[in-house]
């Protein structure tokens, strides 16, 4: 809850994705404060531009939460899972603070009957297994050819770089007006035989991006 208290205006919607927010409802006082913050954010047009350390920390958490929520809206090609209750494997390449947040979030969660497990691989590796692959911005810079190796593998690639979709990534998490929003490359998804839920598309910016 301490984390939540630190949440800046405009990020209040995220609280439900955080571990404390999910598992235990906090005292009414905290909830009221959050509501107030959220209303202020709406009213001020998401005003303040200073990005504090707390805001940054919150950004990692939001991204982690988005990553963990994604499997609910994604259908992988047949054969992606060995069994109906095989876990969803979320792979993170290289070092990322987002990856540090994930274990707390996935603990105990069952999505579509599957657990979510985190797998971290060394920078430069391009694993052809797993279901979701998160490519942090630093890793994208370091190995720009990574995405092309993963094409047609049925892996949902998620990134956080401006050129991620251009390079063939499927979902990009970007900061727009103090919000982390989703950008989706439908063509890339089709290629990877991954079906994205219309609900997900409904809250995303859809691009029929470069089919490379």
């Amino acid at each position, binding site marked *: 809850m301490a984390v939540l208290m630190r949440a800046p205006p405009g990020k209040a919607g995220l609280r439900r994705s955080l571990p404390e927010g999910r598992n235990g409802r906090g005292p009414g006082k905290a909830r009221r404060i959050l509501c107030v913050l959220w209303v202020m954010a709406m009213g001020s047009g998401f005003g303040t531009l200073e990005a504090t350390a707390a805001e940054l920390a919150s950004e990692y958490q939001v991204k982690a939460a988005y990553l963990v929520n994604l499997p609910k809206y994604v259908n992988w090609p047949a054969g992606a899972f060995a069994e109906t209750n095989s876990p969803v494997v979320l792979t993170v390449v290289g070092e990322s603070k987002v990856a540090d947040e994930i274990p707390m979030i996935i603990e105990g969660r069952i999505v579509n009957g599957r657990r979510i497990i985190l797998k971290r691989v060394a920078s430069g590796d391009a694993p052809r297994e797993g279901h979701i692959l998160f490519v942090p911005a630093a890793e994208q810079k370091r190995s720009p050819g990574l995405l092309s190796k993963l094409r047609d593998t049925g892996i949902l690639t998620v990134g956080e770089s401006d050129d991620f979709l251009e390079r063939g990534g499927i979902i990009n998490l970007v900061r727009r007006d103090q919000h982390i929003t989703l950008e989706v490359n439908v063509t890339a998804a089709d290629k990877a035989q991954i079906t994205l839920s219309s609900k997900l598309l409904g809250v*995303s910016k859809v691009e029929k991006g470069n089919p490379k």
Partner: protein
Amino acid sequence: MTSFHNLSLRRKLTVIIMLTSTLVLLLACAGFATFDLLGFRREMVQMVSSLAEVVGNNTTAAIDFNKPLDAMQTLTALRGEPKIVAAHVHTLDGGTFATYLREGAQPPPEVPHSLQSRHEFTATHLYVFRPIAQGGERVGTIELIADLKDLQVRFWRYAGITVLVLGVSLLAAFALSSWLQKLVSDPILHLAQVARSVAIEKDYSVRAVEQSDDELGQLVKGFNTMLFQIQTRDAALLAAQTSLEERVVERTGELVKTHAQLLVVSREAGMATVATSILHNVGNVLNSVNVSADRILEKVRQLKPASLVKVAALLREHAKDLPEYLSHDPRGRELPGYLSALADQLADPQKDILPEVAALRKNVEHIREIVRMQQGYTNASDVWETLSITDLMEDAIGINADDLAPRKVELIREFSAVPAFPMEKHKVLQILINLLSNAKHALDASRASDRKLIVRIGPHGENRVRISVIDNGMGIPAENLTRIFQHGFTTRAGGHGFGLHSGAVAAQEMGGSLIARSEGPGMGAEFTLELPISRQGRSVCTAESGAEVMRRVAENGADRNARGAIALVNPILAPSSPI
């Protein structure tokens, strides 16, 4: 209710029918309306619930990826449902993520929101809560709020329909019942009218008309039958009354005739009773007269006048030389001694004879009194003398003494001191003689070796004297105890059956009673004569009714605690005319 009771039959039937119809229609309408409104509510809940599920399902991604504006946009689709006035999306921690309010609508009052699937009706709104889930994971709750205007409109429409239906139905019911009730009320009214005319005019010849064969028809039939029976009975009663008068005249004539006959018979019976009484009482005394006469005769026989004649002849023969003869002649010298012996011999019988003659005189006097009593029976020798009852008893014993002596009967006198009191001497004497005579006969018939006759006199209470004659002779069987006082009843050959009867009558005339008591055959008997000391007591007693006397006598019997004791004072007979 009283006013309802007094309504006419027609009104009553109408009121009953109308009330019944109204109640039934109201119940039916209320039932239908309730059923329909409940169904409508259920449908409304279902409709709002499915709406909530659809809308909620479309907000999952907005919640999961923090897009409240998207969620609001989704909720805005509810504009197409005019029932929904407001909607909220709640996050799992209870916060409100997105809200929708229909344009121009007042925000409805909040209810505590729920994470569970539930609904709640308030007076004006329906609140439906449904969980929102994605991928099997709960993400939040949607709350839809519908207003109940439709329900209210429907309710009032029902109320209007009910009033309309009720009005039309009641009109129809009134018309129909006015016509149909005649089937029931007309025969009853007709019957009531006939009954009234019967009651007022007492004319039992009218008849009610049967109009049907149901219970009412049977009622009319029964009523007519009743009228017929009353008519028949009236006629029979009249006939009976007439014949009764005739019969009364007839019977009265018979009674007059019987009464005259009875008068004759009773007069004859009275005369017979008087005759019997005289014979009996005189007979009793004559017995003693006879005995006295016999004794006198015997004593007189014992006189020897022949010796005196002889002495007289001797004296006449020696008249010239009488002194010589008396002094020198050996026979003459014995003559004075002889004469004195003769004188003695003559004096002795006289001594014996005189009391006998006195007794004879007394008995004859008694006989004379008996006859005199009977001659003036109506005011029967009402001579009251103050006498000693003990002396009177001794007289009675004396009269019976000659009979008792040779029978080896031990006579025991148990006399307590009682004052002399007024009584009718000859009646009392006659009773006592009778009792002693009866006891004598009872002892004669007994085979007991020690025959005892106890005569007891003593006071009883302050005003009465009791005289008991007790024997241990043959006794009286219980069945005879009731009869011995009856006129003409006797157990003795040669008895008249009169003594006890006349004794009891005499005792009652003096204000006393005569009571018999016996333990049974061979156990002896006890007769008790009770007499009042003062004449006052007597007059009181005679004034008592026969029943009262019987009761008192019965009480006396109970006093003695005597088994089989029976008392009887029989006033049956009082000769109706003097002889």
